[in-house]
């Protein structure tokens, strides 16, 4: 794979992991049996991210306000590094997500297994989005014009 393609694949799973709950991520890892050995490079740390918006939606940038986020960087014993960044303050989720990110970067049975778990998470996230959208769609107005007089 080219570096660009690798990044795209990685962007996808990092986004899915960021949206997943701590419970879902712990479950994904526990499917592997024993956790691999790893060193922590940056401890799970909670900080803030300044959320930017644009005036009018597409104009001048401005700061809307901050959001909490947590990040973590680990290194597997084979040298591969795993990163995680997600909104919120869950440090366990951050560490687990970084481990999964590192494991997913190689091509072996472990990454295949994790990959299918990622696919399942993506499906359930898409389903939740779809359901919310269909519930909103049920409140969509269907205008009809009343005919007055003899027409």
């Amino acid at each position, binding site marked *: 794979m080219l570096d660009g393609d690798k990044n795209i694949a990685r962007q996808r799973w990092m986004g899915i992991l960021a949206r997943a709950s701590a419970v879902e991520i712990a479950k994904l890892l526990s499917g592997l049996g024993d956790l691999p050995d790893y060193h922590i*490079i*940056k*401890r799970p*740390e909670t900080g803030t991210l300044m959320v930017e918006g644009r005036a009018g939606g597409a104009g001048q940038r401005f700061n809307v306000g901050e959001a909490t986020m947590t990040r973590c960087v680990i*290194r597997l014993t084979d*040298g*591969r*590094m795993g990163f995680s960044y997600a909104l919120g303050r869950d440090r366990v989720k951050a560490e687990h997500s970084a481990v999964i990110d590192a494991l997913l970067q190689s091509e072996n049975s472990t990454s295949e297994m994790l990959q299918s778990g990622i696919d399942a998470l993506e499906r359930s996230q898409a389903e939740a989005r779809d359901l919310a959208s269909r519930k909103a769609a049920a409140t969509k107005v269907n205008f009809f014009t009343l005919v007055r007089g003899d027409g």
Partner: protein
Amino acid sequence: MSALEQSSLAMGLADPVFGSQHVFRTLLNAFAAPSTPMQISDTLSGVPDSIPSAAAAVLLTMADYETPVWLSQPFDGIRPWLAFHTSAPMPMHPADARFAVVSADFNELRLDAFSLGDERYPDTSATIIIICPTLENGHPVTLKGPGIKDATVFAPQGIERAMWKQIADNNALFPLGVDLIFVAGSSLAALPRSTRIIGDF
């Protein structure tokens, strides 16, 4: 960043929270007692060889993504390390920096090329970390001012007369002007803009 480069990045401060608090406290003490050498006791690991540990500790504590750091030539190699640990931007021009790292033998150093602050916000001036071989045995100058009882002598190695002249000129700008941190190995000494330089230069 390739996997190879990534794997060379190791830990920063041994304890990010208490470590940076220790360094911050040390810096406060250093600025309160100009020219008095202070020790950074945090055990850092994975610091690039080209930069002394006290300078690395100051950068890890003070720099973040909103704190531009300007690096003079011999310190180019620390860029990936600094970016990884602090996300600090590293601008081209000294004037855009809030912190700078220079070597004592950097001849082109012009203190007034850095931000000197302005009358309303003198705090926006730059802080320059000057790397010296040791903090003694150099050209001696006498210092007076806040935090110094009567007078004291300071002689960091590698700071020559012309540089002391610049530092004295910087002091004349007070309340504007840059602040200096002299670093050698794991020790550092501060020279705030408020310290007067008396001597032969």
